[in-house]
């Protein structure tokens, strides 16, 4: 069977991201998964165990400052060279900012079609995408080149299938035009050890109704009790209650967790765009007419400052 290249997403803090395991699971349906690690020196060695656990038969590693010190262009060059050499059946990347950006450059370098935000991929290359704020399901195909696809987190249930991958170090030859955008600093702002927003199985979000930044502690507390990530509506972010990288909605992140809890969020279309494909939705809002209740599997009309602490207490009791 042909190789399927999976471009690995990982973080220093959490290691291999869940979307990578989803992609490896998906890749096994299409061919033989090969993981491509693009990062600093030693990155592949640190991730090899986990990648093997989910079926990576091979790991291609491109490491070092030439890869890590510039914005995506050197990574795209490495993957393009690899694609030309191994002629894979498909290339899968995460539908994250960086994944889409590498894919964008690959599409131009290889004169190849590209499909983003894919939630399922059939063996014949037909991809399923969800469009227009989750209101439309689209089936598409790349018609020039190989399936070059970015996979949306929380689309596939990752299942292990042990393999012992051999690691092949690739030679990194970044051209001058690959090195135009230089990363001079990386600053961590994520606090605590909560799961990443787009990957979390549970997301607890706060909106304008939370009232102020300090009150977001309530949202965080419930998120922690449920083992989830914290999100925020645009209204909450614009009001300075919570940082922008946690914004869920049309101009923020799209999430599709098992459980989405909306606290003090009215459910404007801007917000629904980012969360309405969640499996189960729960809402607390003082306005019983709020549109969020049209989506919610369970809704409580009332004061979130009474309801949320009581819920938190009840969860603690049951633990």
């Amino acid at each position, binding site marked *: 069977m042909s190789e399927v290249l999976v471009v690995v997403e990982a973080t220093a*803090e959490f290691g291999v991201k869940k979307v990578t395991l989803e992609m490896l699971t998906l890749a096994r349906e299409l061919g033989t998964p090969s993981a491509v690690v693009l990062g600093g020196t030693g990155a592949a060695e640190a991730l090899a165990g986990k990648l093997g656990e989910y079926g990576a038969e091979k790991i291609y590693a491109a490491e070092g400052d030439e890869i890590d010190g510039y*914005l*995506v*262009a050197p990574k*795209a060059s490495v993957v393009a060279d690899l694609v030309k050499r191994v002629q894979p059946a498909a290339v899968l990347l995460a539908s994250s*900012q960086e994944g889409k*950006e590498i*894919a*964008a*450059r690959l*599409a*131009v370098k290889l*004169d*190849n*079609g*590209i499909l*983003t*935000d894919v939630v399922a991929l059939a063996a014949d290359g037909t991809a399923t995408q969800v*469009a*227009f*704020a989750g*209101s*439309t*399901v*689209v089936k*598409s195909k790349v*018609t*020039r*080149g190989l399936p070059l696809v970015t996979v949306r987190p929380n689309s596939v249930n990752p299942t292990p299938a042990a393999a012992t991958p051999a690691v092949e170090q690739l030679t990194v030859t970044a051209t001058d035009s690959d090195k*135009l*955008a*230089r*990363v*001079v600093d*990386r*600053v961590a*702002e*994520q606090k605590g050890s909560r799961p990443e927003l787009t990957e979390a199985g549970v997301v607890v979000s706060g909106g304008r109704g939370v009232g102020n930044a300090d009150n977001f502690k309530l949202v965080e507390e419930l998120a922690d009790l449920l083992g989830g990530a914290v999100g925020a509506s645009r209204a909450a*972010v614009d009001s300075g209650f919570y940082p*922008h*990288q946690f914004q869920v909605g049309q*101009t923020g992140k799209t999430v599709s967790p098992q459980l989405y809890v909306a606290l003090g969020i009215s459910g404007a*279309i801007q917000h629904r765009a980012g969360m309405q494909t969640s499996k189960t939705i*729960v809402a607390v809002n003082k306005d*019983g007419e709020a549109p969020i*209740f*049209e989506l*919610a599997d*369970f*809704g*409580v*009309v*009332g*004061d979130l400052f*009474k*309801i*949320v602490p*009581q*819920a938190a207490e*009840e969860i603690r009791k049951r633990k």
Partner: protein
Amino acid sequence: MNIVVLVKQVPDSGADRNLRTDDNTVDRGSANNVINEMDEYAIEEALKIKEAHGGEVTILTMGPDRATESIRKALSMGPDKAVHVVDDALHGSCAVATSKVLAAALGQLNADLVLCGSESTDGRVQVMPHMLAERLGIAALTGARKLTVDGATLTVERQTEEGYEVVTASTPAIVSVWDTINEPRYPSFKGIMAAKKKPVQTLALTDLGVAADEVGFAGATSTVVEHSKRPPRSGGVKVTDEGSGGTQLVEFLATEKFV
């Protein structure tokens, strides 16, 4: 500094949006079409840079005739002129082909800085800045929440999952922005009146040296096989808190096995 801002006309994301049943493209005919919201932040950033450093701001749009409305709206915020790439053969173009056309247009505009929104609200594909950078051999600084211009040196804070990266490049470059970067101005009455007289140059594919079969359905690198509307979610149980709302909430979560 010669700045070009990419502006896309999109169907209003606040209303119902559809794909056409005849050719599977975005239904623009029946939609209320507006400037892609994120592009307004790119226009604002361009105007701020012009105010601080001098230069000229040009709007570049690829789209059908009706995109003229969005171009005038963009000009009413303050840019100097616009270029509208319009050609019937462009209908049905994929992202790869679109980048070919925009790159050809940018090639004629000699920009020091190209600004655009991080994504459009219709496709949300987020690929255009890097596709253009790849074609033009210029730097792409994407996902900026802050942009600093110091002579020919550009520095951005790029929003990431973990925090932000500081990324720097020399002009010419393309920078895409998030809506956290600024607060776009509202067009003034004077601005709206002035926009009517600002030059809008139209370019067809022949002006750009791009063949008709490289774009549109003929040149598409991907195709939509089918599409359907998802059934709308229906609300479930709604209770009014009478002192035990929190407990009821947890009982629901327990039956769904979340606690």
